[in-house]
Protein backbone atom coordinates (compact mmCIF):
# COMPACT_ATOMS: atom_id res chain seq x y z
CA UNK A 1 0.00 0.00 0.00
CA UNK A 2 1.32 3.44 -0.91
CA UNK A 3 1.07 6.27 1.60
CA UNK A 4 2.08 8.92 -0.92
CA UNK A 5 -0.24 11.91 -0.94
CA UNK A 6 -2.37 11.82 -4.07
CA UNK A 7 -2.18 14.46 -6.77
CA UNK A 8 -5.63 15.94 -6.33
CA UNK A 9 -5.51 17.71 -9.68
CA UNK A 10 -5.81 14.37 -11.47
CA UNK A 11 -6.96 11.93 -8.80
CA UNK A 12 -10.22 10.06 -9.34
CA UNK A 13 -11.33 8.92 -5.90
CA UNK A 14 -13.43 5.80 -5.64
CA UNK A 15 -15.60 4.43 -2.85
CA UNK A 16 -14.08 1.37 -1.24
CA UNK A 17 -15.79 -1.86 -0.26
CA UNK A 18 -19.28 -2.54 1.01
CA UNK A 19 -20.57 -0.14 3.64
CA UNK A 20 -23.93 0.43 5.23
CA UNK A 21 -25.43 3.89 4.91
CA UNK A 22 -28.08 5.33 7.18
CA UNK A 23 -29.45 8.84 6.77
CA UNK A 24 -30.81 10.79 9.69
CA UNK A 25 -31.76 14.38 8.88
CA UNK A 26 -28.71 16.29 7.60
CA UNK A 27 -26.30 13.68 8.96
CA UNK A 28 -25.45 10.32 7.49
CA UNK A 29 -23.80 7.43 9.25
CA UNK A 30 -21.58 5.10 7.27
CA UNK A 31 -20.76 1.77 8.88
CA UNK A 32 -17.85 -0.25 7.57
CA UNK A 33 -18.53 -3.88 8.58
CA UNK A 34 -14.96 -4.84 7.65
CA UNK A 35 -13.46 -2.62 10.33
CA UNK A 36 -16.51 -2.25 12.56
CA UNK A 37 -16.06 1.53 12.45
CA UNK A 38 -18.89 4.04 12.14
CA UNK A 39 -18.41 7.39 10.41
CA UNK A 40 -20.66 10.45 10.46
CA UNK A 41 -20.78 12.59 7.33
CA UNK A 42 -22.54 15.89 6.86
CA UNK A 43 -24.55 16.58 3.70
CA UNK A 44 -21.65 18.09 1.74
CA UNK A 45 -19.24 15.28 2.63
CA UNK A 46 -21.85 12.69 1.74
CA UNK A 47 -22.53 14.37 -1.62
CA UNK A 48 -18.81 14.31 -2.45
CA UNK A 49 -18.43 10.72 -1.23
CA UNK A 50 -21.32 9.76 -3.53
CA UNK A 51 -19.41 11.31 -6.43
CA UNK A 52 -16.39 9.10 -5.75
CA UNK A 53 -16.99 6.70 -8.63
CA UNK A 54 -13.43 6.25 -9.84
CA UNK A 55 -14.12 8.40 -12.90
CA UNK A 56 -14.80 11.86 -11.48
CA UNK A 57 -11.80 13.99 -10.62
CA UNK A 58 -11.55 16.28 -7.63
CA UNK A 59 -11.36 19.33 -9.96
CA UNK A 60 -14.60 18.25 -11.64
CA UNK A 61 -16.25 18.08 -8.22
CA UNK A 62 -14.80 21.49 -7.40
CA UNK A 63 -16.08 23.02 -10.66
CA UNK A 64 -19.58 21.71 -9.99
CA UNK A 65 -19.51 23.07 -6.44
CA UNK A 66 -18.22 26.37 -7.75
CA UNK A 67 -21.06 26.63 -10.26
CA UNK A 68 -23.65 25.90 -7.57
CA UNK A 69 -22.25 28.15 -4.87
CA UNK A 70 -20.64 30.96 -6.85
CA UNK A 71 -17.41 30.41 -4.91
CA UNK A 72 -14.16 30.38 -6.93
CA UNK A 73 -12.99 26.94 -8.08
CA UNK A 74 -9.65 27.36 -6.28
CA UNK A 75 -11.54 27.59 -2.98
CA UNK A 76 -13.97 24.79 -3.71
CA UNK A 77 -11.05 22.54 -4.71
CA UNK A 78 -9.54 23.18 -1.28
CA UNK A 79 -12.91 22.26 0.25
CA UNK A 80 -13.15 19.11 -1.84
CA UNK A 81 -9.62 18.01 -0.91
CA UNK A 82 -10.13 18.75 2.77
CA UNK A 83 -13.30 16.66 2.66
CA UNK A 84 -11.82 13.76 0.70
CA UNK A 85 -8.52 13.47 2.59
CA UNK A 86 -10.14 12.21 5.82
CA UNK A 87 -12.25 9.78 3.76
CA UNK A 88 -9.04 8.53 2.19
CA UNK A 89 -7.36 8.25 5.61
CA UNK A 90 -10.35 6.34 6.94
CA UNK A 91 -10.28 3.94 4.00
CA UNK A 92 -13.71 4.94 2.72
CA UNK A 93 -12.23 5.97 -0.62
CA UNK A 94 -9.16 5.01 -2.60
CA UNK A 95 -7.46 7.12 -5.20
CA UNK A 96 -6.12 6.38 -8.65
CA UNK A 97 -4.47 9.09 -10.72
CA UNK A 98 -5.66 9.78 -14.25
CA UNK A 99 -2.90 9.47 -16.82
CA UNK A 100 -2.42 13.06 -17.90
CA UNK A 101 -1.11 11.71 -21.23
Amino acid at each position, binding site marked *: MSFEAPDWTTATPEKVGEVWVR*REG*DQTAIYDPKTGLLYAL*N*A*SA*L*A*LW*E*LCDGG*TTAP*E*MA*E*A*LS*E*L*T*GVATESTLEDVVSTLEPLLDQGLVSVAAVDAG
Partner: protein
Amino acid sequence: MLKIIVTSPDEVFGGALAAALSGAPDVGDCSMLAMEEAAAVAEEGNTDVLVLHAGPVEPPDVARLAAAAPVLVLGTGSAEEMIASVEAGAMGYVDADSPFETIAETVRSLAKGVATVEPKLLGALLRHVVERRRAEREARKALDVLTPRENQVFSLLAQGLDSGDLAEQLFISSQTVRTHTQRIMTKLDLHSRSELVALAARCGLDLEPIPGEEAQ
Protein backbone atom coordinates in the same frame (compact mmCIF):
# COMPACT_ATOMS: atom_id res chain seq x y z
CA MET B 1 -36.60 42.97 7.56
CA LEU B 2 -37.37 40.45 4.88
CA LYS B 3 -40.02 40.83 2.22
CA ILE B 4 -41.34 37.44 1.16
CA ILE B 5 -43.98 36.34 -1.33
CA VAL B 6 -45.58 32.91 -1.17
CA THR B 7 -47.44 31.52 -4.16
CA SER B 8 -49.23 28.18 -4.14
CA PRO B 9 -52.20 26.58 -5.88
CA ASP B 10 -53.13 25.24 -2.44
CA GLU B 11 -54.58 28.26 -0.65
CA VAL B 12 -54.67 26.51 2.71
CA PHE B 13 -51.00 25.47 2.55
CA GLY B 14 -49.85 28.77 1.05
CA GLY B 15 -51.89 30.84 3.47
CA ALA B 16 -50.65 28.89 6.48
CA LEU B 17 -47.04 29.15 5.35
CA ALA B 18 -47.35 32.90 4.71
CA ALA B 19 -48.93 33.39 8.14
CA ALA B 20 -46.20 31.37 9.84
CA LEU B 21 -43.42 33.24 8.02
CA SER B 22 -45.09 36.56 8.86
CA GLY B 23 -44.71 35.68 12.52
CA ALA B 24 -40.92 35.37 12.29
CA PRO B 25 -39.13 38.31 13.94
CA ASP B 26 -36.94 39.01 10.88
CA VAL B 27 -39.84 39.07 8.41
CA GLY B 28 -41.36 42.45 7.70
CA ASP B 29 -43.85 41.50 5.04
CA CYS B 30 -45.03 38.11 3.80
CA SER B 31 -47.98 37.81 1.43
CA MET B 32 -49.66 34.87 -0.21
CA LEU B 33 -50.41 35.79 -3.82
CA ALA B 34 -51.63 34.03 -6.95
CA MET B 35 -48.87 33.23 -9.47
CA GLU B 36 -49.57 36.16 -11.81
CA GLU B 37 -49.78 38.67 -9.01
CA ALA B 38 -46.70 37.21 -7.36
CA ALA B 39 -44.74 37.65 -10.59
CA ALA B 40 -45.99 41.21 -11.03
CA VAL B 41 -45.12 42.23 -7.46
CA ALA B 42 -41.71 40.55 -7.62
CA GLU B 43 -40.97 42.35 -10.88
CA GLU B 44 -41.44 45.65 -9.04
CA GLY B 45 -38.33 44.71 -7.03
CA ASN B 46 -37.46 44.59 -3.31
CA THR B 47 -38.68 41.01 -2.84
CA ASP B 48 -36.06 39.08 -0.85
CA VAL B 49 -37.44 35.61 -1.55
CA LEU B 50 -40.33 34.25 -3.57
CA VAL B 51 -41.53 30.88 -2.29
CA LEU B 52 -43.10 28.82 -5.07
CA HIS B 53 -45.10 25.84 -3.91
CA ALA B 54 -46.19 23.77 -6.86
CA GLY B 55 -46.91 20.23 -7.72
CA PRO B 56 -45.76 19.50 -10.30
CA VAL B 57 -43.20 22.28 -10.68
CA GLU B 58 -43.31 23.93 -14.10
CA PRO B 59 -39.79 25.09 -15.10
CA PRO B 60 -41.12 28.02 -17.21
CA ASP B 61 -42.91 29.35 -14.10
CA VAL B 62 -39.68 29.02 -12.11
CA ALA B 63 -37.70 30.78 -14.84
CA ARG B 64 -40.16 33.66 -15.01
CA LEU B 65 -40.24 34.19 -11.25
CA ALA B 66 -36.48 33.69 -10.90
CA ALA B 67 -35.91 36.60 -13.27
CA ALA B 68 -37.62 38.84 -10.70
CA ALA B 69 -36.48 37.49 -7.30
CA PRO B 70 -34.61 34.59 -5.67
CA VAL B 71 -36.97 31.64 -5.87
CA LEU B 72 -37.34 28.86 -3.33
CA VAL B 73 -39.25 25.92 -4.79
CA LEU B 74 -41.22 23.74 -2.41
CA GLY B 75 -41.69 20.52 -4.35
CA THR B 76 -42.20 16.81 -4.05
CA GLY B 77 -38.60 16.19 -3.02
CA SER B 78 -37.65 14.21 -6.13
CA ALA B 79 -34.14 14.65 -7.52
CA GLU B 80 -35.48 15.13 -11.06
CA GLU B 81 -37.79 17.93 -9.98
CA MET B 82 -35.07 19.59 -7.92
CA ILE B 83 -32.64 19.49 -10.87
CA ALA B 84 -35.29 20.89 -13.26
CA SER B 85 -36.04 23.67 -10.77
CA VAL B 86 -32.39 24.61 -10.29
CA GLU B 87 -31.73 24.49 -14.04
CA ALA B 88 -34.72 26.81 -14.53
CA GLY B 89 -33.18 29.31 -12.13
CA ALA B 90 -34.43 28.39 -8.66
CA MET B 91 -31.95 29.36 -5.96
CA GLY B 92 -33.32 26.88 -3.46
CA TYR B 93 -35.32 23.68 -3.32
CA VAL B 94 -36.80 21.79 -0.40
CA ASP B 95 -39.46 19.17 0.03
CA ALA B 96 -42.82 20.85 0.69
CA ASP B 97 -43.34 18.36 3.52
CA SER B 98 -40.27 19.64 5.37
CA PRO B 99 -40.77 21.05 8.86
CA PHE B 100 -41.58 24.79 8.94
CA GLU B 101 -38.19 25.55 10.58
CA THR B 102 -36.38 23.99 7.59
CA ILE B 103 -38.39 26.08 5.13
CA ALA B 104 -37.87 29.26 7.19
CA GLU B 105 -34.11 28.64 7.48
CA THR B 106 -33.88 28.02 3.73
CA VAL B 107 -35.74 31.28 3.07
CA ARG B 108 -33.19 33.09 5.27
CA SER B 109 -30.28 31.43 3.41
CA LEU B 110 -31.65 32.56 0.06
CA ALA B 111 -32.21 36.08 1.40
CA LYS B 112 -28.48 36.14 2.25
CA GLY B 113 -27.65 35.02 -1.28
CA VAL B 114 -26.78 31.43 -0.34
CA ALA B 115 -28.15 28.82 -2.73
CA THR B 116 -29.61 25.94 -0.75
CA VAL B 117 -31.09 22.59 -1.67
CA GLU B 118 -32.40 19.69 0.36
CA PRO B 119 -29.25 18.09 1.83
CA LYS B 120 -30.24 14.59 0.74
CA LEU B 121 -30.50 15.83 -2.88
CA LEU B 122 -27.13 17.57 -2.98
CA GLY B 123 -25.31 14.49 -4.33
CA ALA B 124 -27.77 14.13 -7.21
CA LEU B 125 -27.41 17.82 -8.05
CA LEU B 126 -23.61 17.66 -8.00
CA ARG B 127 -23.67 14.53 -10.19
CA HIS B 128 -25.98 16.30 -12.65
CA VAL B 129 -23.72 19.37 -12.85
CA VAL B 130 -20.57 17.25 -13.29
CA GLU B 131 -22.20 15.29 -16.13
CA ARG B 132 -23.59 18.41 -17.81
CA ARG B 133 -20.20 20.11 -17.69
CA ARG B 134 -18.59 16.99 -19.18
CA ALA B 135 -21.14 17.01 -22.02
CA GLU B 136 -20.48 20.73 -22.58
CA ARG B 137 -16.71 20.16 -22.72
CA GLU B 138 -17.29 17.38 -25.26
CA ALA B 139 -19.59 19.61 -27.35
CA ARG B 140 -17.06 22.47 -27.23
CA LYS B 141 -14.50 20.25 -28.98
CA ALA B 142 -16.56 20.78 -32.15
CA LEU B 143 -15.60 24.46 -31.98
CA ASP B 144 -11.89 23.63 -32.20
CA VAL B 145 -12.14 23.90 -36.01
CA LEU B 146 -12.94 27.61 -35.69
CA THR B 147 -10.35 30.36 -35.62
CA PRO B 148 -10.34 32.60 -32.52
CA ARG B 149 -12.20 35.31 -34.49
CA GLU B 150 -14.77 32.81 -35.75
CA ASN B 151 -15.23 31.58 -32.18
CA GLN B 152 -15.95 35.15 -31.14
CA VAL B 153 -18.46 35.60 -33.98
CA PHE B 154 -20.04 32.25 -33.10
CA SER B 155 -20.61 33.34 -29.50
CA LEU B 156 -22.08 36.68 -30.49
CA LEU B 157 -24.36 35.10 -33.10
CA ALA B 158 -25.53 32.64 -30.46
CA GLN B 159 -26.31 35.55 -28.16
CA GLY B 160 -28.69 36.89 -30.77
CA LEU B 161 -26.69 39.77 -32.25
CA ASP B 162 -27.55 40.54 -35.86
CA SER B 163 -24.89 41.23 -38.48
CA GLY B 164 -25.05 44.99 -37.98
CA ASP B 165 -24.64 44.84 -34.19
CA LEU B 166 -21.92 42.24 -34.53
CA ALA B 167 -20.01 44.35 -37.07
CA GLU B 168 -20.25 47.36 -34.77
CA GLN B 169 -19.11 45.40 -31.73
CA LEU B 170 -16.12 43.81 -33.50
CA PHE B 171 -15.22 46.92 -35.56
CA ILE B 172 -15.51 45.00 -38.82
CA SER B 173 -17.75 45.40 -41.86
CA SER B 174 -21.08 43.63 -42.27
CA GLN B 175 -19.63 41.85 -45.29
CA THR B 176 -16.81 40.45 -43.12
CA VAL B 177 -19.38 39.31 -40.56
CA ARG B 178 -21.27 37.52 -43.33
CA THR B 179 -18.06 35.85 -44.51
CA HIS B 180 -17.24 34.69 -40.98
CA THR B 181 -20.80 33.46 -40.57
CA GLN B 182 -20.69 31.47 -43.81
CA ARG B 183 -17.41 29.86 -42.80
CA ILE B 184 -18.69 29.01 -39.34
CA MET B 185 -21.84 27.41 -40.75
CA THR B 186 -19.82 25.38 -43.26
CA LYS B 187 -17.16 24.25 -40.78
CA LEU B 188 -19.71 23.20 -38.19
CA ASP B 189 -22.16 21.79 -40.77
CA LEU B 190 -24.92 24.05 -39.50
CA HIS B 191 -27.88 25.10 -41.63
CA SER B 192 -29.68 27.72 -39.57
CA ARG B 193 -29.29 30.16 -36.72
CA SER B 194 -31.39 27.86 -34.55
CA GLU B 195 -28.95 24.99 -35.12
CA LEU B 196 -26.13 27.34 -34.16
CA VAL B 197 -27.95 28.38 -30.98
CA ALA B 198 -28.68 24.72 -30.14
CA LEU B 199 -24.97 23.88 -30.50
CA ALA B 200 -24.02 26.89 -28.36
CA ALA B 201 -26.47 25.71 -25.70
CA ARG B 202 -24.91 22.22 -25.74
CA CYS B 203 -21.54 23.92 -25.31
CA GLY B 204 -22.83 25.68 -22.21
CA LEU B 205 -22.53 29.19 -23.62
CA ASP B 206 -24.74 31.87 -22.08
CA LEU B 207 -27.50 32.67 -24.49
CA GLU B 208 -30.06 35.41 -24.86
CA PRO B 209 -33.38 34.93 -26.63
CA ILE B 210 -32.93 35.60 -30.33
CA PRO B 211 -35.29 36.78 -33.05
CA GLY B 212 -36.57 33.98 -35.27
CA GLU B 213 -34.36 34.86 -38.22
CA GLU B 214 -32.42 32.19 -40.07
CA ALA B 215 -28.70 32.52 -40.61
CA GLN B 216 -27.62 33.13 -44.15
